[in-house]
């Protein structure tokens, strides 16, 4: 079986796919890729199923070799990447051969970068998914020395690139009302919408703690809400007034009041907001949120048709006559 060999690993690297949907009744949250759009982009670049597992790299990448010639794609938070010193464009697919080393460095912006492999990572599924769910004790961190098995990949097409909007620098996040929005006064909600937040360094796959200037936010009956089901996107306000946006690996129940819920289309931008990126939240109507969801699904549906062939730069092809696309020496201009 083909393998990806991890020769160096950043501190928070995990195998991720779409996670385990439908197990709330058993107390297991969905988990899966922190940035679900990046998962879909990688699948589009490699022309394969969005259900295949990829490597999620939080903050830092690592170094990798392969047992056999393998197609790869890089998506999510842009990171410095090269094969044997030759830099690779992000949001693109490439080929790596045995003996070559792929090196992925730190994030240029954003938080979660993804390394996708032709055929996907083929570790043993647990409860229907290959996604590590660290809080639940399913799977674990990928570490130096690990050999990750890869699924079969019949395809060999050359490098593709994908134009991607910036969802790695914070910005305006749309929210709708949640169970306890009405417990926050109109002026408290207005102050929430007017506040610039940044991602706290303590953020992880369970949730993003938001930091801000000024006082915390207070609801009536702050501490006496009976525990209810909570889901990714919910913005919980803890006892000291700090908001947390829940991410895919959140717990399944909670008793903190929720001021609102981030719409699914904007949740990747919250997960990806890097250090110092500003986040602002804006309540939108249910109708506006529905329209955003419609557009988001259309975008995801159309993704597989969007990758374009990389424009090859003759300067990168010193010996044009012997040039073969499979060797991976393909560069791409920004689209």
């Amino acid at each position: 079986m083909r393998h990806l060999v991890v020769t160096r690993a950043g501190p928070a690297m995990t195998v991720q796919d779409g996670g385990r949907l439908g197990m709330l009744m058993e107390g297991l949250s969905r988990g899966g890729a922190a940035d679900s759009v990046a998962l879909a982009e990688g699948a589009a670049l490699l022309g394969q199923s969005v259900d295949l597992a990829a490597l999620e790299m939080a903050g830092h990448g690592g170094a990798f070799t392969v047992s056999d010639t393998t197609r790869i794609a890089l998506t999510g938070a842009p990171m410095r990447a090269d094969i044997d010193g030759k830099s690779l464009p992000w949001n693109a697919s490439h080929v790596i051969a045995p003996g070559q080393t792929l090196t992925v460095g730190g994030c240029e912006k954003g938080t979660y970068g993804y390394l996708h492999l032709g055929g996907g990572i083929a570790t043993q599924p647990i409860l229907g998914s290959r996604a590590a769910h660290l809080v639940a004790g399913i799977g674990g961190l990928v570490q130096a020395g690990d050999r990750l098995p890869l699924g079969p990949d019949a395809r060999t097409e050359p490098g593709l690139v994908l134009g991607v909007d910036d969802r790695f620098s914070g910005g305006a996040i749309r929210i709708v009302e949640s169970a306890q929005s009405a417990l926050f006064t109109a002026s408290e909600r207005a102050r929430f919408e007017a506040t610039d937040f940044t991602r706290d360094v303590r953020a992880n796959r369970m949730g993003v703690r938001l930091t801000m200037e000024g006082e915390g936010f207070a609801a009536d009956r702050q501490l006496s809400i009976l525990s209810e089901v909570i889901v990714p996107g919910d913005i919980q306000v803890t006892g000291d007034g700090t908001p947390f946006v829940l991410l895919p690996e959140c717990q399944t129940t909670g008793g903190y009041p929720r001021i609102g819920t981030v719409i699914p289309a904007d949740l990747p931008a919250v997960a990806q907001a890097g250090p110092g990126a500003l986040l602002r939240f804006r309540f939108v109507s249910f109708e506006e949120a529905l329209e955003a969801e419609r557009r988001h699904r259309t975008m995801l549906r159309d993704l597989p048709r969007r990758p374009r062939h990389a424009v090859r730069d003759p300067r990168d092809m010193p010996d044009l006559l012997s040039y073969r696309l499979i060797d991976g020496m393909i560069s791409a201009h920004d689209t």
Partner: protein
Amino acid sequence: MTAAQGGFPAIRTLGLTGLLVSFADQLSEPANRAALAFRAAVEREGLPGVEETSTSLASVFLRFDPLAVAPGDLRERIAALLGTRDWYSAPLPANRRRWRIPTVYGTDLAPQLEEAAEAAGMTADAAVAELSRTTVRVLTIGFAPGQPYLGELPPAWDLPRQVALTRRVPEGALVVAIRQFVLFSAPTPTGWRHIGQTAFRAFRPQSETPFPLRPGDELIFPAIGRDEFDQIRAADTSGDGGATVETIA
């Protein structure tokens, strides 16, 4: 509470893709039964657009696809279903089991027995005598995979959660607060007091039965000594930790 009152049951929107049906704003046995029975009814109905249902202590959560069903229409279907009976008098789920899970109370394994007993106004011996003979029921599974919330304990155990968290209690810890036990399925920080330790694994990801407990199951935590516990833990490969189980209904 035996029937709908005080604005309950209530249907609320929860983000773009969720509805929450609440049967009470505090835990009661009838409200818990109502939530379990209503969730089962929603599953039986197979409502279009509903993709997942779950319960917590006294509410039912529905995840739906807002592009497959108009939220207003779904709310109407839910309201109609709520009106078909008095859910607070619904029976408990079928196929319930009674588990007896051997437990060490106190010792260095469960260091907060003494302070919990004092907070409940009794000696540690009296606390063990009461807690080890009380039958509790799985009210809900949640927070962490397979993890049961168990109740209700006698009124003396209406202890507030600690303000300061215990940094880490281990898997299998039996903790107490607000007239409930939780049997932790994974190591976790908590504000609940750690009064007993079991070798029971409430989440077994590699097993045929990854989630052994179900809402409605009854649990008893008989007291055993430290030696017996160590033997059980050393010999156990199933995750049952010496527990016995029988069908009761």
